[in-house]
C-alpha cells in the first residue's frame, strides 16, 4: 500500500485512492476503498454522497476551491493535485481552503510532490503529503523543517516576523 507523510514527517499507510475525472459521457466509477473524487463532481451529486465518510474530493491546480464555500467541512479529506511540482497554483488553493473557507479537516498534497517543496506546502496548510513514489520518504521529516521560522504570516502562523520582533 502507498505511503503518506504526515505534517510531523512520520510515515503512515495510505488508504485513499484518487479517482480520475471520467471521460465525456462516462460515469464516475467509485471503488470499494475510500476514494477522492473530482471536487466539482462531488458538489454536483452532493446529496448522493451524504454521510459517506469514505468519499473525499480533489482539486486540480486550475480549479477554484471557492465552489465549496460553506460546505468544505462536510468533507474529511480534500486533496490538491500538483500536476508538475513547478505549478504553484496549489499553494494558493490550500491557503484559500484553510484561511478563506475555514476548512479544518485533512488537506493532502498529491501528484508531483517532491521533498524540497514540503515545507512550503505545510506552511500553506497541507497536513498530509503523498510523496512521488520514487522519492525517499525517510527524508521528509528533515525537509519539512529546514526553516525554524518564516518571515511571513501564512496558514501555519498568523504572526509575521515583523510583529514578533515588535513584541
Amino acid at each position, binding site marked *: 500500500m502507498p505511503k503518506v507523510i504526515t505534517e510531523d514527517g512520520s510515515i503512515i499507510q495510505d488508504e485513499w485512492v484518487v479517482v480520475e475525472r471520467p471521460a465525456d459521457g462516462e460515469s464516475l466509477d467509485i471503488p470499494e476503498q475510500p476514494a477522492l473524487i473530482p471536487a466539482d463532481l462531488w458538489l454536483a451529486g452532493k446529496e448522493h454522497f451524504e454521510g459517506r465518510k469514505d468519499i473525499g474530493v480533489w482539486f486540480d491546480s486550475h480549479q477554484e476551491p471557492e465552489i465549496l464555500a460553506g460546505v468544505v467541512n462536510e468533507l474529511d479529506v480534500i486533496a490538491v493535485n500538483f500536476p508538475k*511540482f*513547478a*505549478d*504553484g*497554483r496549489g*499553494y*494558493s*488553493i490550500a*491557503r484559500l481552503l484553510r484561511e*478563506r473557507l475555514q476548512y479544518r479537516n485533512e488537506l493532502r498534497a498529491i501528484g508531483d510532490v*517532491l521533498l*524540497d*517543496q514540503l*515545507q*512550503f*506546502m505545510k*506552511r*500553506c496548510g497541507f497536513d498530509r503529503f503523498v510523496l512521488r513514489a520514487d522519492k*525517499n520518504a525517510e527524508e521528509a521529516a*528533515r525537509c519539512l523543517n*529546514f*526553516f*525554524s*521560522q*518564516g*518571515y*511571513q*504570516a*501564512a496558514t501555519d502562523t*498568523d*504572526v*509575521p*516576523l*515583523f*510583529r*514578533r*520582533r*515588535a513584541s
Partner: protein
Amino acid sequence: MYVYDKHDRQIAAERVEQFRDQTRRALAGELSEDEFLPLRLQNGLYVQRLAPMLRIAVPYGMLRSVQLRRLARITRDYDKGYAHFTTRQNVQLNWPAVEDVPDILAELAEVEMHANQTSGNCIRNTTTDQFSGVQADEIADPRPYCEIIRQWSTFHPEFAFLPRKFKVAVNASEHSDRAAIQVHDIGLQLVRSDSGELGFRVHVGGGLGRTPMVGPVIREYLPEKDLLTYLEAVLRVYNRYGRRDNKFKARIKILVKALTPEGFAEKVEAEWAHIKDSPTQLTREAIDKFQTYFTEPDYQQVPDVQASLATQRFENRGFDQWIANNVDTHKKSGYAIVTLTMKKTGIPPGDVSDRQLEQIADLADEYSFGEVRVTHQQNAVLADVRQDRLYELWQAITPMGFATANLNKLTDVICCPGGDYCALANAKSIPVAEAIQRKFEDLDYLYDIGDLDLNISGCMNACGHHHVGNIGVLGVDKKGQEFYQISLGGSSHHDAAIGKILGPSFARDDMPDVVKRIIDVYVDNRTQEEAFLDTYRRIGIDPFKERVYA
C-alpha cells in the same frame, strides 16, 4: 542600512544548510536536472555557456564596505578575480564551481549577504533609486519599504513557483525615476494623500522582454500600512490566473492586458477585501522599526563650498567635467552624491575586479560612511561625500578608472553580458558597446550630444533594457549570423515609453556608424537645449530612417 538581527541570522544559516543539502543530493543524482533547476535558480545559480554563474543579491542596491571586501575575496578564492554589477543592482560571479556554491553562500552569510531569489520564477530582488535617502525631492525614504518587501517575499511559501519571474521596484522622488518602476511587474511610487498620509501609487504589468509594456496604474493610492496585503492580493491573482501554458505569455503584463487594467484591478480588490485587515497589515511600530535602520549617517554641520569648488573647476577642466556629470546635489548642505562610473572604454560595462571592489570599499570608508550603492545602470554611488573633499576624491579615483565623466551620456552604455558569457544570447553585446564607446570618445562631442540612454541587449530577454533606451540595440540571430536591430524613443523614466523599431537590422561592424548617423539627425534638427528624446518625439522616426538607410 539594514542590519540582521538574530532571526535573520538564523534564517540565513538555515538557508545555507538547505542549499548545501540540495546541492549534495543533486550531485549524488537524487535530484534530477529538472528538479534541481528551480532550486538552484532560486539561489541565483545558473549553468551558463562557459561555466556556472552565481547571482548574489544586493537588496535595493546597498552595500557596506565589509561586504565589498568579502565579495573581492570570494572572487579571488572561488572565481577569476572579478565580478559584474547587473541591471538589477545585483552582483554576478561568472566562473564559480557548482560544488563550491554552498561554501560561497556561507561566506556571504557571514557578512549578511545571500543569493536568495536572484533568479527563478519567484519574487526577485526589489530595486529602488540609488539616490534614496539623500536627495531633496523625495516623498520619503523608499528603502524601509524595500526591506519590508524583501522580508515578506523571502521564501514566501505561496509564491515560490509563480508562472514567471516577478520584479518589484519602488521610487520615491517626485521629479525623477531612477528605478524604472513603470517597466516592472509591480512599480510602486511613494505619494502623499490629500491629507498628507504616506502611501503608494501602484503600477502593475509593465516589463520588457518579448512583449514590452509600460505598466498601467491599477491603484492611485494605497495606504502604506496596506503595502504587503495588497502585494499579496496581486500575487495571488497572478499565481492563480497567470498563464502557465506558454513561457512567453506567462508574465503578469499579459494577464493585465487580457483582463484589461480595470478588470485586473477589480480582481485584486476583490481578493484584497478578504485579507486587507489580516495580521500581514503593517503596524506603525513595524514601519517605525524598519525606518530606524535607514536613518541619516553622522553628517557634520558644514556649509556648501561652491566658491572654492568653482575655483578648482576653473583651474582644472577634467575636474569641472566630472563635477558637471558625475556629481549630484545632496539634501544636506556641504555634501554631494558621487557616481563612480564603471564604463571606461575597453572594460565590459559593469565588470569590476577584486582590487577595484576593495578600492571602492576603501573609498566608501574614507568618504561615505562605509556605504556604497549599486545602480541599475551598472555604476556605483558614494552617496554622502563632503563637498570640500570632492577634489581629493576625484584625484584618488581617476587612476582607478572610476572618474570617466560620462554619466548618463551615450558612452554610459547599459549592456548585458551577451554572447560572450550568456547561453541565452543571440549575439554579442560587449564588443558593440566598446565599438560605440570608441567612436564617441571625444568628451566635448559627448557633452554636446547631452544626456542619452543607449541600452544594448544580446537577446529578446532584454537584460540590457534595450526597449527603454533612447537608442536601443538588440542582438538578433539570422541564420547563424549576428545582426543588430535598433529602436528609438524608449525611456525608463517618469515619461516611460517603449522604443520604436527603426527598420532592418545591421551588421556588427556598421553599428558605430549607424549610431553616428542617428546622432547627426538629432544634432541637425534639435532646438537649443532640446534633449535627444525630445527631438525624436517632435520630429518622429522618419528623418532618422531616411538618413540611416540612405
